[in-house]
């Protein structure tokens, strides 16, 4: 930059960018837009390719609706489970320096490292015909694989780390002083957790919860292996989309994809809304 340019940029509050910078920024924006908006636009295009009526018809078929309902129920249930247990695990990992803590900490990341398909296969190994735990579940009359419990387990496994990983750093950061204060003021462990700790970590927790939900909505690989794909019963929206492509029912596929995207997006918006209100 020449002296005059330097002077003027120092004087004026707005930053004057050089041509090079502008090009670079423009390129970055275009790249991001293409990567993120491209699929979205394709989904919109595809779902409306045969007109609005076709779009509405395809997303209101019985199979599409049951698939969507199953998806949401599974995601909600997996989120609930992972929130409760995730909080417990995060608490223990941060506050209690026990033997083998490092191992457990590493195991929490296992679902990231392992392909979801492997998670599905693992469940079949455990609960499938001749599986290690099948005799137990059979005697309880519960069918795990190729039925909803298996799908729930698969979804829980795949979304395990999110709440934990979001809550742990926050727990570290807030330290034990407030909790200790609560104890000296007479609060039991549970009271201290509920009144003091939980409010302090709520944003991290909420973020983790939204991530869990969004991820659970989109789970495919593990469910493909474990569900058996019984349409109307063990078919989630993702499996429905996959099947619709096979059936050459592109409108149904794109339409459902759009619905899922919309769901995830609204979860994200809600989360941002909460964040801005603090």
């Amino acid at each position, binding site marked *: 930059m020449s002296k005059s340019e330097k002077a003027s940029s120092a004087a004026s509050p707005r930053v004057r960018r050089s041509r090079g910078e502008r090009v670079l920024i423009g390129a970055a924006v275009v790249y991001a837009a293409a990567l993120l908006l491209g699929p979205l636009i394709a989904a919109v295009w595809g779902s409306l390719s045969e007109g609005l009526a076709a779009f509405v018809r395809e997303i209101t078929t019985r199979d599409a609706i049951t698939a969507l309902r199953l998806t949401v*129920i*599974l995601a*909600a*249930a997996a*989120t*609930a*489970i992972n*929130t409760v247990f995730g909080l417990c695990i995060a608490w223990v990992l941060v506050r209690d320096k026990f033997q083998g803590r490092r191992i457990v900490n590493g195991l929490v990341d296992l679902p990231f490292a392992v392909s979801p398909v492997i998670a599905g296969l693992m469940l*079949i190994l455990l*609960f*499938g*015909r*001749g*599986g290690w735990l*099948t005799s137990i579940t059979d005697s309880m*009359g*519960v*069918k795990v*694989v*190729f*039925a*909803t*419990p298996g799908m*729930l387990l698969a979804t829980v496994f795949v979304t395990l780390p999110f709440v934990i990983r979001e809550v742990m750093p926050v727990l570290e950061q807030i330290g034990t002083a407030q909790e200790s204060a609560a104890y000296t003021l007479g609060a039991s462990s549970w009271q201290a957790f509920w009144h003091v700790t*939980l*409010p302090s970590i*709520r944003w991290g927790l909420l973020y983790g919860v939204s991530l869990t939900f969004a991820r659970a909505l989109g789970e495919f690989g593990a469910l493909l292996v474990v569900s*058996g*794909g*019984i*349409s*109307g*019963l*063990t078919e989630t929206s993702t499996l429905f989309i996959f*099947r619709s*492509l*096979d*059936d*050459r029912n592109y409108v149904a596929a794109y339409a459902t994809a759009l619905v899922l995207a919309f769901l995830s997006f609204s979860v994200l918006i809600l989360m941002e809304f909460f964040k801005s209100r603090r």
Partner: protein
Amino acid sequence: MKTYLMNFGCWTLFFLVICLQACARQENKANKVTLILGSYTAPREVYGKAILPMFKDYWKKRTGQDVQFQTSYQGSGAQARAVVGGFEADVAALALAEDIDRIAEAGLITHDWKADSHGGMVSRSIVVIAVRRGNPKGIRDWPDLALPGLNILTPDPKTSGGAMWNINAIYGAALRGFAGVAGGDAAAARGFLKSVFRNVSVMDKGARESLTTYEKGIGDVAITYENEVLIGRAAGQPYEYVIPRSTLLIENPAAVVDKYADKHGSRDVAEAFVDFLSHEEAQRAYAKYGLRPVNPEVARETESQFPPVDDLWKIDFLGGWKKVISELYGPQGMFTQVQRELQASK
């Protein structure tokens, strides 16, 4: 804090709902029965739109019971594996006999499923060659596939059991002398197979996938099944197909999975269903959706739809599925080696 409590409550509620739904057992009450069907992907429409509703009416009229179907459609091999792995299908309707055999070997099918009038088969198809509209490359028979510069699509036998049909067809036709090489010459047939596969660019994981890739504009020809092509054309796809002079007859079996049918108490319905599949109604439905019927009456009726083949032969010619699988597709199999050689030369 109230919001947290509410949220927590809602989640817990959802959780409970799941648990309850999940733990509900399949109960076969007096006037209601559930039948679980494990099928392969191609006949989804014919079952879903035609045969299953027909059977429901039929059974209701016969017994007054309501039948509720739970159907799963996956690749034939995958479905067989699922059933073996614990998917409790009462009836298995798959793409090839070998897959049913697999279920039988796992001890889940205890009766001789081939013992009925059609050898346990309910529908048929043949291996054909799909070409672009107007057949620009002028494909007429198997030998044309060895033309250099041709781009061929066919599914991968490693991931799709049904894909083996295609390769078997080429190999068998060559052995029978319909591929431009001397008949009975295993080496020559092998050579022909190799030259065809030199032209194969993409191997999708299943027959349907292979055809949809073709529909996207990739490849000059696709080796596929007649029923797939017919379904595609019914959906408006513009391609045409060529029936080679010599081709392999694909037969699709269906059988009751004894263990599960007994466990669910649905044996009667299951057996009736499998039997129903060879009734005229059902066979006509198959024909309507592109599958050649096994019932001779219906076959006569639908002759015009399904042109005859000069030299139609079955898998027995190659020695049966077991032999074919080990000799052609095993680790030391002929086809496996051909692939390896082609890879190495690339």
